[in-house]
């Protein structure tokens, strides 16, 4: 063994940092999370403590060999640059002040991506961009390729090509950062409200990147885990809301709430089916407001004929509310009114999405749509080949559809974030653009309450 091997070494090992060669009995000068691992007789720390660990070792004047870091410096910055908007410069300055680790909150269409490009240029380290969908991966790939004029790596969607600038999905990051976590000095988490889930959070923990940028329009989560963002990325360093930017930097818009009614016959059926469903959950003391309510209903409904009937009743009353004939007639009318525009239709589920596609002969995009066809459909919407596209959830966030100026929410969940994101899809500014969001709700059904909940945001109360 050589003398060099005797020097303590810091190694990246499966999403952790192994510090080998330090005596186990030494008075610990290391950060709290760097602990002795008896399984390997070495000190171990989570990879995202890399910067803290390096500082601690240097402060204590402990010589060591850093074999963990495998990221490089970029040879050049963007070859295409444009003047940032004032709030984009403010956001970058706030992020730099926080040692290049923090979250920037800006509404959809406000140019979060440009803030990321400025951050990459500022740090000039190998960078990984993590995005929630393959559509967004494609979008980031094209943007980085044209801005930095160099080949961009992709991990995910059947590809595994790692380069100094690489784009991936949260799913792939969770799987691969255990191996690739030392290859990047900066990580950009796009739509970073996804990150604090139990699994995705490991993507951040398995990476050593000392610089981290989170981008989102709506960091808040139903489960309150947004508080983890501070540990995984850094604190929220900058925030602006839709109402602060509408008009100047986002398109002016209007939201239109449309109520439609069930016919008498549909109403009778709706009430009858709902009564069957309600009676079952009352008899079994299931509280749907309880976080466990839905899973309890699924479990109990499978156990008896009564339960199966209750589940069928639940589905039918929901179908009547979500796809009421009057609602679909209204959609037909809107498609006709806006046939010269670019409309996005949103549904709560794939079945309704495909039903609308077949009925109105408009393209559908769901998670089953392959990336090549998705790109062709979005190009078709931009160049006017199509006047409308229907989607369930995949276009809720991130995907750039700058020409879309009409959104029609046919059905959705009670999530404020989802509703704000859907509005955001049509707000990217274009000369003279005025955006319209229609929300069609079947009156006096459970959907009315769902609609009230999701509109609880400043963007809908102007």
């Amino acid at each position, binding site marked *: *063994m050589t003398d060099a*091997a005797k020097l303590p070494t810091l190694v990246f*090992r*499966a*999403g*952790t940092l*192994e510090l080998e060669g330090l005596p*186990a009995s030494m008075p610990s000068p290391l950060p709290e*999370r760097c*602990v002795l*691992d*008896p*399984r*390997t*007789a070495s000190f*171990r*720390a*989570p990879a995202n403590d890399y910067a803290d660990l390096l500082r601690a070792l240097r402060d204590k004047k402990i010589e060591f060999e850093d074999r963990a870091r495998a990221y490089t410096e970029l040879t050049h910055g963007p070859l295409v640059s444009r003047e940032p908007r004032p709030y984009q410069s403010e956001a970058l300055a706030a992020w730099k002040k926080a040692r290049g680790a923090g979250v920037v909150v800006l509404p959809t269409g406000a140019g979060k991506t440009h803030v990321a490009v400025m951050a990459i240029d500022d740090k000039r380290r190998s960078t990984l961009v993590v995005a929630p969908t393959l559509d967004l991966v494609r979008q980031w790939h094209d943007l980085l390729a044209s801005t930095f004029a160099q080949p961009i790596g992709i991990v995910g969607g059947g590809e595994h090509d790692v380069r100094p600038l690489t784009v991936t999905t949260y799913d792939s990051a969770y799987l691969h950062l*255990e191996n690739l976590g030392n290859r990047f000095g900066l990580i950009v988490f796009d739509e970073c409200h996804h990150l604090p889930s*139990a*699994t995705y959070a*490991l993507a951040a*923990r*398995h990476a050593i990147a000392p610089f981290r940028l989170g981008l989102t329009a709506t960091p808040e989560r139903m489960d309150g885990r947004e508080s983890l963002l501070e540990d995984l990325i850094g604190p929220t360093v900058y925030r602006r809301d839709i109402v602060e930017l509408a008009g100047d930097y986002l398109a002016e818009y209007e939201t239109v709430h449309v109520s439609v009614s069930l016919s008498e016959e549909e109403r009778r059926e709706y009430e009858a089916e709902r009564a069957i469903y309600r009676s079952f959950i009352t008899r079994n003391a299931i509280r749907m407001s309880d*976080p*466990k309510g839905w*899973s309890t209903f699924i479990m109990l409904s*499978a*156990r*008896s*004929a009564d339960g199966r009937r209750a589940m069928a009743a639940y589905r039918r009353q929901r179908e009547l509310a979500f796809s009421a004939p009057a609602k679909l007639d209204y959609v*037909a009318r809107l*498609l*006709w009114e806006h*046939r*010269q525009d670019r409309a996005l239709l949103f549904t709560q589920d794939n079945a309704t999405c*495909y039903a609308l*596609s*077949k*009925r*109105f*002969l*408009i*393209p559908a995009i769901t998670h*089953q749509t*392959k990336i090549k*066809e998705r790109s*062709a459909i979005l190009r*078709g919407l931009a160049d006017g*080949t*199509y*006047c*409308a596209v229907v989607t369930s959830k995949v276009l809720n966030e991130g995907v750039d559809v700058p020409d879309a100026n009409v959104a029609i929410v046919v059905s959705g969940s009670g999530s404020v974030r989802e509703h704000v994101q859907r509005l955001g899809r049509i707000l990217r500014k274009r000369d003279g653009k005025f955006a319209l969001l229609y929300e069609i709700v079947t009156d006096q059904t459970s959907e009315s309450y769902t609609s009230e909940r999701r509109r609880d945001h400043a963007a809908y109360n102007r």
Partner: protein
Amino acid sequence: MLPVDLVHSRRQKDRLVVTPLGERLDRAREIATELVQIAEAHVGRTREELETAWRALDVPAREIRLRDGLIALIEDALDLDGRADVDAVALRAEVFSRATARRRSEATFDRDAILAELAQEKGTTVEAIEADLYADLRGAQVLRAAVDRTGAPIALVPGGAAAIVEGYDLSQAQSVLLRATRVVVTLSETPALALRSLLRKLKFHRLLFAAERAAERTVLTIDGPSALFESTTRYGLALAIALPSVLACVPERIEADLRWGKERLPLRYVIEPPSPLLAERRAIESGLPDEVEAVIEKLRAKSERFEISVADVLLDIPGVGLTVPDLTLREKKTKRVVHVEVLGHWSRDAVWKRVELAEKGLPEPVLFCASERLRVSEAVLPETTGASLYMYKGALSASVILERAERLLAQAAAPKKKRARSV
């Protein structure tokens, strides 16, 4: 693998109790047989039709989960693929772009007229166009007949219903382990080959383990590197995949800590007798490495002094590691032994770990053999440590192994720095 929500389980205080097929075995065979027959009758038809037919198989409410679990396992074994005769993407582009153009140019939007016009142009019917429009969706995938490499028909489900039922309990256990944060395996009298296979599997899946000896037992606690900082199910899939190797060691007991259900409830899952998973000794997954197989007969032919056998010991130094030698050379006259472990050419790191192991003191002499391709000098391990490093070029030499074994025995009288445990 069985979806987690189809595992037949119940909570009992802080335990998750998984119900094996047990008395339902015959019933499971009946249901599986019917499901396979339904699948065979649906070759050439769509996944949606097949799934509808499967769900129509009426079973009592208490058997629905069993039926659905069997469906999941059978579905895994089938070849369901998109329709090759329809280019649905191209058809959609054509239909939707024409519909947009008509919507913009005509006074009213007439859906039926657009489809009729297209059908006429293509020499088909409106119904066919509507059916083909989304022919590439998952539900429209077609069940293909199974064929071998030569194209000859074979069973649709390999091993038939019997194989599906036979694998059901293992699938249940593996699905539970997907939610495991760590697994504790208690071993005794473990065949060395099975243990080696397990350790290789753990290493391959980047799992780590701590080994402890209690009485005559060895307890392996298996999890992953970052489990040191938080309880995570990140390694659940690796633990599930490693389960057959764990079972091949015929453990006394397997204990898994789980985060179960949406609430991620901390529960414990235990596999112990009379679990059917521990009922019989299973075939060991892998035998000796090829290079060891190749040298063992040569050693026997060349050596008068030693009895050569497959090793059955486990060398453990707490905090440093555990290793399983491949061969044991026992001196006929004195019964003293030298173990041989072949590290091959797969990990330079493994060599350094063995050096560290030897420096801490091994209970019995060991000759470590590694390929020259790993570029480690034999000098890093002086024979005074009670171990020796043989860096071989190409194939292992029986003569060199015997010569080194003799030298190690000659060194064995020297005092040891520290004794470790031989398990």
